[in-house]
Protein backbone atom coordinates (compact mmCIF):
# COMPACT_ATOMS: atom_id res chain seq x y z
CA UNK A 1 0.00 0.00 0.00
CA UNK A 2 1.25 3.52 -0.81
CA UNK A 3 2.45 5.69 2.02
CA UNK A 4 0.48 9.01 2.04
CA UNK A 5 3.36 10.87 3.76
CA UNK A 6 5.77 9.72 1.10
CA UNK A 7 3.46 10.79 -1.73
CA UNK A 8 2.92 14.17 -0.07
CA UNK A 9 6.71 14.69 0.05
CA UNK A 10 7.08 13.73 -3.61
CA UNK A 11 4.31 16.15 -4.62
CA UNK A 12 5.95 18.98 -2.65
CA UNK A 13 9.34 18.20 -4.19
CA UNK A 14 7.85 18.21 -7.70
CA UNK A 15 6.05 21.51 -6.95
CA UNK A 16 9.29 23.17 -5.90
CA UNK A 17 11.40 21.62 -8.69
CA UNK A 18 11.07 24.75 -10.86
CA UNK A 19 11.55 27.28 -8.05
CA UNK A 20 15.11 28.06 -9.14
CA UNK A 21 14.62 27.53 -12.85
CA UNK A 22 16.88 29.52 -15.17
CA UNK A 23 15.68 31.30 -18.29
CA UNK A 24 15.94 29.17 -21.44
CA UNK A 25 18.10 30.71 -24.19
CA UNK A 26 16.60 31.12 -27.64
CA UNK A 27 18.10 30.10 -30.97
CA UNK A 28 20.92 32.55 -31.87
CA UNK A 29 19.64 32.56 -35.48
CA UNK A 30 16.14 33.66 -34.49
CA UNK A 31 16.54 37.11 -36.09
CA UNK A 32 17.65 35.52 -39.40
CA UNK A 33 14.63 33.20 -39.30
CA UNK A 34 12.29 36.13 -38.61
CA UNK A 35 13.70 38.15 -41.51
CA UNK A 36 13.34 35.14 -43.85
CA UNK A 37 9.74 34.72 -42.73
CA UNK A 38 9.03 38.44 -43.32
CA UNK A 39 10.57 38.19 -46.82
CA UNK A 40 8.27 35.21 -47.58
CA UNK A 41 5.25 37.20 -46.39
CA UNK A 42 6.30 40.08 -48.67
CA UNK A 43 6.40 37.76 -51.67
CA UNK A 44 2.96 36.42 -50.82
CA UNK A 45 1.55 39.93 -50.42
CA UNK A 46 2.85 40.89 -53.82
CA UNK A 47 0.18 38.63 -55.40
CA UNK A 48 -2.34 41.29 -56.39
CA UNK A 49 -5.50 39.53 -55.10
CA UNK A 50 -4.00 39.05 -51.62
CA UNK A 51 -4.48 42.76 -50.96
CA UNK A 52 -7.84 43.20 -49.20
CA UNK A 53 -8.72 46.44 -51.05
CA UNK A 54 -8.14 44.86 -54.45
CA UNK A 55 -9.97 41.67 -53.52
CA UNK A 56 -12.96 43.69 -52.25
CA UNK A 57 -12.96 45.94 -55.34
CA UNK A 58 -12.93 42.85 -57.59
CA UNK A 59 -15.88 41.29 -55.76
CA UNK A 60 -17.85 44.57 -55.95
CA UNK A 61 -17.05 44.86 -59.68
CA UNK A 62 -18.33 41.33 -60.31
CA UNK A 63 -21.53 42.02 -58.32
CA UNK A 64 -22.04 45.28 -60.25
CA UNK A 65 -21.58 43.58 -63.62
CA UNK A 66 -23.98 40.80 -62.65
CA UNK A 67 -26.66 43.21 -61.49
CA UNK A 68 -26.28 45.29 -64.68
CA UNK A 69 -26.80 42.20 -66.85
CA UNK A 70 -29.73 41.08 -64.64
CA UNK A 71 -31.57 44.43 -64.83
CA UNK A 72 -30.96 44.76 -68.56
CA UNK A 73 -32.48 41.32 -69.15
CA UNK A 74 -35.50 42.02 -66.95
CA UNK A 75 -36.16 45.29 -68.84
CA UNK A 76 -36.07 43.58 -72.23
CA UNK A 77 -38.38 40.82 -71.04
CA UNK A 78 -41.06 43.28 -69.79
CA UNK A 79 -40.85 45.53 -72.87
CA UNK A 80 -43.10 44.70 -75.81
CA UNK A 81 -41.11 43.02 -78.55
CA UNK A 82 -41.84 43.34 -82.33
CA UNK A 83 -43.74 40.00 -82.43
CA UNK A 84 -46.06 41.12 -79.61
CA UNK A 85 -46.61 44.47 -81.37
CA UNK A 86 -47.85 42.66 -84.52
CA UNK A 87 -50.15 40.56 -82.35
CA UNK A 88 -51.68 43.69 -80.80
CA UNK A 89 -52.26 45.33 -84.21
CA UNK A 90 -53.92 42.14 -85.49
CA UNK A 91 -56.15 41.88 -82.42
CA UNK A 92 -57.24 45.53 -82.72
CA UNK A 93 -58.07 45.19 -86.37
CA UNK A 94 -60.31 42.15 -85.92
CA UNK A 95 -61.68 43.12 -82.47
CA UNK A 96 -60.11 40.00 -81.00
CA UNK A 97 -59.75 40.05 -77.21
CA UNK A 98 -56.04 40.03 -76.47
CA UNK A 99 -56.01 38.77 -72.85
CA UNK A 100 -57.86 35.87 -71.20
CA UNK A 101 -59.84 38.31 -69.05
CA UNK A 102 -60.99 40.23 -72.16
CA UNK A 103 -61.99 36.94 -73.78
CA UNK A 104 -64.10 35.95 -70.71
CA UNK A 105 -65.87 39.32 -70.60
CA UNK A 106 -66.65 39.08 -74.30
CA UNK A 107 -68.18 35.60 -73.77
CA UNK A 108 -70.29 36.95 -70.85
CA UNK A 109 -71.43 39.91 -72.97
CA UNK A 110 -72.56 37.52 -75.73
CA UNK A 111 -74.69 35.60 -73.24
Amino acid at each position, binding site marked *: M*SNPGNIHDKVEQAMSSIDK*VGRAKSNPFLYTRIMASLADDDKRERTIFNRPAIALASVLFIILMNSLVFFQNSETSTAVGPAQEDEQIFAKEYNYPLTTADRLYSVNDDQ
Partner: protein
Amino acid sequence: MNELELIDRLKGGDQAAFKSIVETWQDMVYNTSLGIVQSVEDAEDVAQEVFVQVYESINQFKGDSKFSTWLYRIAVTKSLDHLRKKKRKKRFAFLQSLFGVNEEEVRHTPDFNHPGVGLENKEKASVLFKAIDKLPDNQKTAFTLHKLEGLSYQEVAEVMETTVSSVESLMHRAKGNLKKILTDYYQNLKE
Protein backbone atom coordinates in the same frame (compact mmCIF):
# COMPACT_ATOMS: atom_id res chain seq x y z
CA MET B 1 19.03 53.90 -26.98
CA ASN B 2 15.98 53.51 -24.76
CA GLU B 3 12.86 51.40 -25.31
CA LEU B 4 10.64 54.24 -26.59
CA GLU B 5 13.25 55.45 -29.08
CA LEU B 6 13.61 51.91 -30.42
CA ILE B 7 9.86 51.59 -30.84
CA ASP B 8 9.61 54.97 -32.60
CA ARG B 9 12.39 54.00 -34.97
CA LEU B 10 10.74 50.65 -35.68
CA LYS B 11 7.47 52.49 -36.44
CA GLY B 12 9.51 54.39 -39.03
CA GLY B 13 10.62 51.09 -40.57
CA ASP B 14 14.16 51.01 -39.14
CA GLN B 15 15.51 47.45 -39.47
CA ALA B 16 18.38 48.04 -37.04
CA ALA B 17 15.85 49.02 -34.35
CA PHE B 18 13.93 45.81 -35.04
CA LYS B 19 17.12 43.75 -34.73
CA SER B 20 17.84 45.43 -31.43
CA ILE B 21 14.29 44.71 -30.17
CA VAL B 22 14.59 41.03 -31.16
CA GLU B 23 17.98 40.69 -29.47
CA THR B 24 16.73 42.36 -26.27
CA TRP B 25 13.52 40.38 -25.84
CA GLN B 26 14.03 37.07 -27.69
CA ASP B 27 14.91 35.04 -24.57
CA MET B 28 11.93 36.43 -22.68
CA VAL B 29 9.53 35.57 -25.52
CA TYR B 30 11.11 32.16 -26.11
CA ASN B 31 11.11 31.21 -22.42
CA THR B 32 7.43 32.20 -22.05
CA SER B 33 6.44 30.19 -25.13
CA LEU B 34 8.56 27.23 -24.06
CA GLY B 35 6.79 27.09 -20.68
CA ILE B 36 3.40 26.94 -22.40
CA VAL B 37 4.02 24.81 -25.51
CA GLN B 38 6.64 22.59 -23.82
CA SER B 39 8.61 21.83 -26.97
CA VAL B 40 11.86 23.47 -28.11
CA GLU B 41 10.94 23.40 -31.83
CA ASP B 42 7.41 24.70 -31.27
CA ALA B 43 8.64 27.46 -28.93
CA GLU B 44 11.10 28.61 -31.63
CA ASP B 45 8.27 28.73 -34.18
CA VAL B 46 6.06 30.68 -31.77
CA ALA B 47 8.86 33.14 -30.93
CA GLN B 48 9.34 33.73 -34.65
CA GLU B 49 5.60 34.34 -35.12
CA VAL B 50 5.57 36.75 -32.16
CA PHE B 51 8.30 38.96 -33.63
CA VAL B 52 6.75 38.85 -37.10
CA GLN B 53 3.55 40.16 -35.51
CA VAL B 54 5.52 42.80 -33.60
CA TYR B 55 7.08 43.98 -36.88
CA GLU B 56 3.75 44.06 -38.69
CA SER B 57 1.63 45.62 -35.95
CA ILE B 58 4.04 47.89 -34.09
CA ASN B 59 1.82 50.85 -35.04
CA GLN B 60 -0.92 49.35 -32.87
CA PHE B 61 1.29 49.71 -29.80
CA LYS B 62 0.15 53.00 -28.28
CA GLY B 63 2.31 52.89 -25.18
CA ASP B 64 -0.64 52.44 -22.77
CA SER B 65 1.26 49.56 -21.18
CA LYS B 66 4.93 48.64 -20.97
CA PHE B 67 6.37 47.24 -24.22
CA SER B 68 7.32 44.02 -22.40
CA THR B 69 3.70 43.62 -21.21
CA TRP B 70 2.51 43.96 -24.82
CA LEU B 71 5.12 41.40 -25.91
CA TYR B 72 4.12 38.95 -23.17
CA ARG B 73 0.48 39.26 -24.27
CA ILE B 74 1.35 38.40 -27.88
CA ALA B 75 3.62 35.53 -26.76
CA VAL B 76 0.92 34.03 -24.50
CA THR B 77 -1.82 34.35 -27.14
CA LYS B 78 0.35 32.82 -29.88
CA SER B 79 1.49 29.98 -27.60
CA LEU B 80 -2.06 29.08 -26.56
CA ASP B 81 -3.20 29.25 -30.21
CA HIS B 82 -0.33 26.96 -31.15
CA LEU B 83 -1.36 24.45 -28.46
CA ARG B 84 -4.98 24.50 -29.65
CA LYS B 85 -3.92 23.89 -33.26
CA LYS B 86 -1.65 21.05 -32.15
CA LYS B 87 -4.43 19.41 -30.10
CA ARG B 88 -6.82 19.70 -33.06
CA LYS B 89 -4.23 18.05 -35.34
CA LYS B 90 -3.66 15.28 -32.78
CA ARG B 91 -7.39 14.60 -32.51
CA PHE B 92 -7.69 14.45 -36.30
CA ALA B 93 -4.67 12.12 -36.55
CA PHE B 94 -6.23 9.90 -33.87
CA LEU B 95 -9.48 9.71 -35.83
CA GLN B 96 -7.52 8.86 -38.97
CA SER B 97 -5.63 6.15 -37.09
CA LEU B 98 -8.97 4.56 -36.13
CA PHE B 99 -9.59 4.05 -39.82
CA GLY B 100 -6.06 2.79 -40.38
CA VAL B 101 -4.78 5.99 -42.07
CA ASN B 102 -1.75 7.89 -40.74
CA GLU B 103 -1.02 5.53 -37.87
CA GLU B 104 2.47 6.95 -37.52
CA GLU B 105 1.09 10.40 -36.70
CA VAL B 106 -0.31 9.35 -33.31
CA ARG B 107 2.66 9.34 -31.03
CA HIS B 108 2.98 9.92 -27.34
CA THR B 109 4.39 13.35 -26.49
CA PRO B 110 7.94 12.88 -25.21
CA ASP B 111 8.75 14.05 -21.68
CA PHE B 112 9.63 17.71 -21.67
CA ASN B 113 12.88 18.80 -20.04
CA HIS B 114 13.16 22.54 -19.50
CA PRO B 115 16.77 23.58 -20.25
CA GLY B 116 16.80 25.92 -17.24
CA VAL B 117 16.13 23.16 -14.69
CA GLY B 118 19.12 21.74 -12.82
CA LEU B 119 20.09 18.09 -13.32
CA GLU B 120 18.97 17.08 -9.80
CA ASN B 121 15.43 18.33 -10.48
CA LYS B 122 15.01 17.21 -14.11
CA GLU B 123 12.80 14.20 -13.41
CA LYS B 124 10.52 15.94 -10.90
CA ALA B 125 10.23 19.01 -13.12
CA SER B 126 9.30 16.81 -16.08
CA VAL B 127 6.41 15.34 -14.04
CA LEU B 128 5.37 18.85 -12.98
CA PHE B 129 5.37 20.12 -16.60
CA LYS B 130 3.14 17.22 -17.60
CA ALA B 131 0.72 18.32 -14.87
CA ILE B 132 0.95 22.01 -15.93
CA ASP B 133 -0.06 20.95 -19.44
CA LYS B 134 -3.34 19.63 -18.01
CA LEU B 135 -4.32 22.97 -16.41
CA PRO B 136 -6.94 25.26 -17.98
CA ASP B 137 -5.42 28.01 -20.19
CA ASN B 138 -5.76 30.91 -17.72
CA GLN B 139 -4.29 28.94 -14.78
CA LYS B 140 -1.48 27.68 -17.03
CA THR B 141 -0.71 31.24 -18.16
CA ALA B 142 -0.67 32.71 -14.65
CA PHE B 143 1.44 29.86 -13.26
CA THR B 144 3.96 29.95 -16.15
CA LEU B 145 4.40 33.72 -16.07
CA HIS B 146 4.84 33.75 -12.29
CA LYS B 147 7.00 30.67 -11.88
CA LEU B 148 9.06 30.57 -15.08
CA GLU B 149 9.33 34.25 -15.93
CA GLY B 150 9.36 35.38 -12.31
CA LEU B 151 6.68 38.04 -12.82
CA SER B 152 4.94 39.47 -9.78
CA TYR B 153 1.17 39.02 -9.41
CA GLN B 154 0.77 42.68 -10.40
CA GLU B 155 2.74 42.12 -13.64
CA VAL B 156 0.85 38.90 -14.40
CA ALA B 157 -2.42 40.82 -13.90
CA GLU B 158 -1.25 43.48 -16.41
CA VAL B 159 -0.33 40.85 -19.01
CA MET B 160 -3.62 38.99 -18.54
CA GLU B 161 -5.60 42.27 -18.35
CA THR B 162 -7.19 41.31 -15.08
CA THR B 163 -6.97 42.22 -11.38
CA VAL B 164 -4.35 41.12 -8.86
CA SER B 165 -7.01 39.31 -6.81
CA SER B 166 -8.03 37.31 -9.92
CA VAL B 167 -4.40 36.30 -10.42
CA GLU B 168 -4.17 35.28 -6.75
CA SER B 169 -7.26 33.15 -7.20
CA LEU B 170 -5.92 31.63 -10.46
CA MET B 171 -2.62 30.77 -8.76
CA HIS B 172 -4.41 29.23 -5.77
CA ARG B 173 -6.54 27.07 -8.06
CA ALA B 174 -3.54 26.17 -10.25
CA LYS B 175 -1.53 24.99 -7.24
CA GLY B 176 -4.51 22.99 -5.93
CA ASN B 177 -5.07 21.32 -9.31
CA LEU B 178 -1.37 20.57 -9.74
CA LYS B 179 -1.17 18.93 -6.31
CA LYS B 180 -4.19 16.80 -7.15
CA ILE B 181 -2.77 15.72 -10.54
CA LEU B 182 0.65 14.98 -8.99
CA THR B 183 -0.90 12.99 -6.11
CA ASP B 184 -2.85 10.86 -8.60
CA TYR B 185 0.30 10.39 -10.66
CA TYR B 186 2.45 9.20 -7.73
CA GLN B 187 -0.35 7.01 -6.37
CA ASN B 188 -0.76 5.26 -9.74
CA LEU B 189 3.00 4.87 -9.96
CA LYS B 190 3.11 2.98 -6.64
CA GLU B 191 0.20 0.67 -7.34
